[in-house]
């Protein structure tokens, strides 16, 4: 039987297995290889909430989905073409993500009586047989046996051999999608540099997996995807949290400022602490404080001392920072607050994503307390956005809230990384020392940005005191004067709003600048919205898209663009938050599309929503 080579424009595959099965590593290897093959791609890891739920249970299943193709890819794909399952629980948890007629590659060793019980199928069930009758193609492979066979001469223990099962499976999938083994070989040799026998065993398993797929006739077709037309440049893969770490480090480098991160671990923000703790040679200091209040306090203290002060957290931790954010606002010191949003309220669903902290970011403090709010739109975009956040904070002496989310933070995508020279300058000038007979220093005078001077201890003649009590214009002395309070309240508001002066005008993401339906998104929904708008436009629908990175203040031309459309639709993974800001500020009768399910939008549901919006015109 000969094997058909089928050309595909896009493909989506999903690896699923027990937390101990190494599915995240398998997925990221497939991702790297695919990127090197020139496809565009988008990924979605899907972790279990427990550290290590009992092996074999549905709670312990870990998944990784990748959508790749020869055209631009913006979302990790709603449903997959191929589902790889390492055990019964993985099938149970993931069959809902498989397209009708899709292919299941199943490790049959994970479908024993015990596995079926753990997955709560019941010992007599035959789930693979059953899905086979539902139009799916099931390809059973006894991965354990085959891997052991493949590595019987490796000299490794059975336990160690079994750890290579994921590479055997990866070999199969590499064959199916015509991928090159070399990148993974290199990766394994680096990763196991100190244990070459383990590296070689993994490579053997990988190769034997590929050979197995080639030699046996279980597959009737294999797939080829041409490279995508991708903007030329140098690329790497990156997750949102990694990009955030690198963006901060780059801002430190370019501004010449030391970075001080005060943080307290919390999912899904912890990796920013972990990543920055490895950047000490870039003059980045990290401090794991006793709680989030101490974390932000330390960052503000360091900012007073002349560092770029950063603090990172998520939902419950951000709540605790509220009081100090207000202090930083009235201090008028630079500060970047990173909020990697997760599904709330309260502990909520900590490993799931959501966009429901926007109104908190904009309004959630006592008193009139304006901060800048910036949100990245994708994993790679975290780099540019956080870099910009650092720049705004220092140029305007203002706290900037950076609203990432769980999906972006853990998701990965190819990043056309810049060279250091291409990065914007971040010029920082501390206030200069004074002699005794100079005029007294006034810490609350302002420059053209309405920013006050950054006067750091150690500078002679600038001795001054800052505090949370209302301060007199210019002198900064305590003042209870009613008119001064009114004046300063507006000053802080105006300064925040003045940031818009240096923000780029908003550009159309898809479609014309005027028309029937404008879709307005922000943050991590970018990919799915873009994909959906793109597909709708392919179908001839009059839909345009803009995507907001700047949420407070908004770009100067936002109102104008909103006014150019018959209808404005705002999809958000919350109960409607950006939409409230738009309705209030631009008095536009925007409609929302809101689902709060802890997971990204599917492209299909968005397309349906756009169609419906157009129909009701």
């Amino acid at each position: 039987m000969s094997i058909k080579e089928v050309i595909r424009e896009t493909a989506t595959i999903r690896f699923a297995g027990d937390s101990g099965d190494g599915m995240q590593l398998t997925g990221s290897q497939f991702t790297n290889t695919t990127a090197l093959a020139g496809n565009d791609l988008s990924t979605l890891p899907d972790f279990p909430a427990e550290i290590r739920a009992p092996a074999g249970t549905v709670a312990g299943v870990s998944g990784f989905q990748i959508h790749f193709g020869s055209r631009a890819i913006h979302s990790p794909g709603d449903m997959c073409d191929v589902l790889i399952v390492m055990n019964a629980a993985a099938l149970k948890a993931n069959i809902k993500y498989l397209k009708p007629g899709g292919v299941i590659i199943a490790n049959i060793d994970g479908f024993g009586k015990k596995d079926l019980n753990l997955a709560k199928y019941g010992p007599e069930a035959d789930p693979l047989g059953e899905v086979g009758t539902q139009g799916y193609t099931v390809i059973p492979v006894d991965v354990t046996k085959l891997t052991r066979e493949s590595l019987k001469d490796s000299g490794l223990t059975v336990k160690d051999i079994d750890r290579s099962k994921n590479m055997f499976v990866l070999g199969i999938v590499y064959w199916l999608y015509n991928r090159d083994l070399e990148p993974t070989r290199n990766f394994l040799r680096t990763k196991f540099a100190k244990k070459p026998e383990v590296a070689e065993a993994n490579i053997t398993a990988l190769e034997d997996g590929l050979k197995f797929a080639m030699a046996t006739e279980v597959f009737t077709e294999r797939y080829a995807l041409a490279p995508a037309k991708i903007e030329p440049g140098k690329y790497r893969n990156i997750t949102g949290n990694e990009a955030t770490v690198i963006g901060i480090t780059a801002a430190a480098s370019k501004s010449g400022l030391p970075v001080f991160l005060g943080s307290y671990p919390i999912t899904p923000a912890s990796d920013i602490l972990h990543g920055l703790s490895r950047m000490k040679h870039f003059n980045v200091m990290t401090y794991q404080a006793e709680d989030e209040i101490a974390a932000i306090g330390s960052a503000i203290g360091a900012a007073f001392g002349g560092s770029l002060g950063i603090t990172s957290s998520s939902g419950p931790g951000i709540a605790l920072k509220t009081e100090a954010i207000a202090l930083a606002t009235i201090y008028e010191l630079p500060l970047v607050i990173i909020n990697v949003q997760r599904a709330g309220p309260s502990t909520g669903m900590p490993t799931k994503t959501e966009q429901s902290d926007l109104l908190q970011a904009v309004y959630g403090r006592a008193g009139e307390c304006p901060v800048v709010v910036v949100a990245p739109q994708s994993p790679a975009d975290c780099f540019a956005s956080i870099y910009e956040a650092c720049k705004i904070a220092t140029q305007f002496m203002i706290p900037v809230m950076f609203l990432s989310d769980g999906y972006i933070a853990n998701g990965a995508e190819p990043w056309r990384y810049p060279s250091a020279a291409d990065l914007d300058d971040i010029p920082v000038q501390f206030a200069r020392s004074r002699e005794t007979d100079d005029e007294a220093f006034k810490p609350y005078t302002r420059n053209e940005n309405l920013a006050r001077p950054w006067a750091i201890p150690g500078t002679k003649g600038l001795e001054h005191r800052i505090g949370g009590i209302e301060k007199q214009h210019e002198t900064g002395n305590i003042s209870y004067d009613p008119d001064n309070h009114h004046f300063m309240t507006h000053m802080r508001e105006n300064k925040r709003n003045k940031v818009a002066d240096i923000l780029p005008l908003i550009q159309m993401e898809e479609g014309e600048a005027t028309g029937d339906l404008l879709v307005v998104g922000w943050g991590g929904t970018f990919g799915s919205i873009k994909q959906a708008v793109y597909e709708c436009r392919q179908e001839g629908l009059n839909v345009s898209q803009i995507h907001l990175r700047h949420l407070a203040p908004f770009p100067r031309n936002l109102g104008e663009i909103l006014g150019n459309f018959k209808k404005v639709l705002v999809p958000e993974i919350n109960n409607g938050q950006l939409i409230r800001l738009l309705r209030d500020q631009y008095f536009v009768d925007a409609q929302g599309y809101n689902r709060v399910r802890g997971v990204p939008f599917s492209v299909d549901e968005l397309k349906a929503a756009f169609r419906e919006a157009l129909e009701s015109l």
Partner: protein
Amino acid sequence: MAISTVSNLSSKDFSSDQDVRWCPGCGDYTILKQVQNAMPELGIPKENIVFVAGIGCSSRFPYYMNTYGMHTIHGRAPAFASGLKLSRPDLSVWIITGDGDSLSIGGNHLIHMLRRNIDVNILLFNNEIYGLTKGQYSPTSKVGSVTKSTPLGSLDTPFNPLSLALGANAGFIARAMDRDPKHLKDIILRSEQHKGTSLLEIYQNCIVFNDGAFDLYTDKVSRPETALYLEHGKPLIFGKDNTHGIRLDGMRPEVVELGNGVSADDLWIHDENDHFKAYLLTRFFAVGNEDGFPRPFGVLFEQERPAYEQEVARQMAYAKKRNGDADLEKLLSGDETWVVV
């Protein structure tokens, strides 16, 4: 950066141009004065000094010092000071805090700072009351305190701040009072000399809401009987005309009268470096000295231990050396890249 000529600074140079706004007669005034008196003796240019405070009457302190200053939020001064000192080990950092600020809302930051041992000087103004919010009981108020929020008397056992500090692995603990200004100044200077976190508890009279809380110790007549001034290497002697001393019988301290065969040689010799003895001293804490033991003043304990910010600096330096020059290009590209043409 120009270096001030430090030598010719006077106490007045440390006084800011802001009106001092405490109640007339408040103990805070004397403490402010002694801090301003101590400053010139430190030999530190005033631009290198930062006072960091929380919220409370006492926490207004930084406004009155002609140095850098941060009036922060309630209870959190140690957090701000930690970030400042870690990132700027060159600065002399002082925390001013009240009993409510440091032991009620801020208790956790205090004990964490003590265990980490960051080199800042904490002056804890203990007036056993919330002054700024007009008279509620605090975690140091005596059991039975009738205050605005406890009309029938408070019920909670107060903290023993210095016991708590030792339990948290503090490296320096001391006690002084507003009404013995000379001693206060000496101990302020000692606190500053200690490398690592120093905690100096200062008994401070709130004339409005808790007047006389420390009269037993501050009254010049009763003081000799009630206050025990500690000196390293010296026997524990007190009483008008130094008539009494403290002796250790195994682990049990006892008050003895000198003479009749009991001499200074038999007494407990104060050893600032003995953790366990210091702990015993912190337990001389009975209300009204009812157990017969005088209240210790001075340095109860000092321990040499690396200051946290120095260790952090060492680790930073090590990382810089180990990783060579920080290469931003390399960081941007990472290890695996590909080119699209």
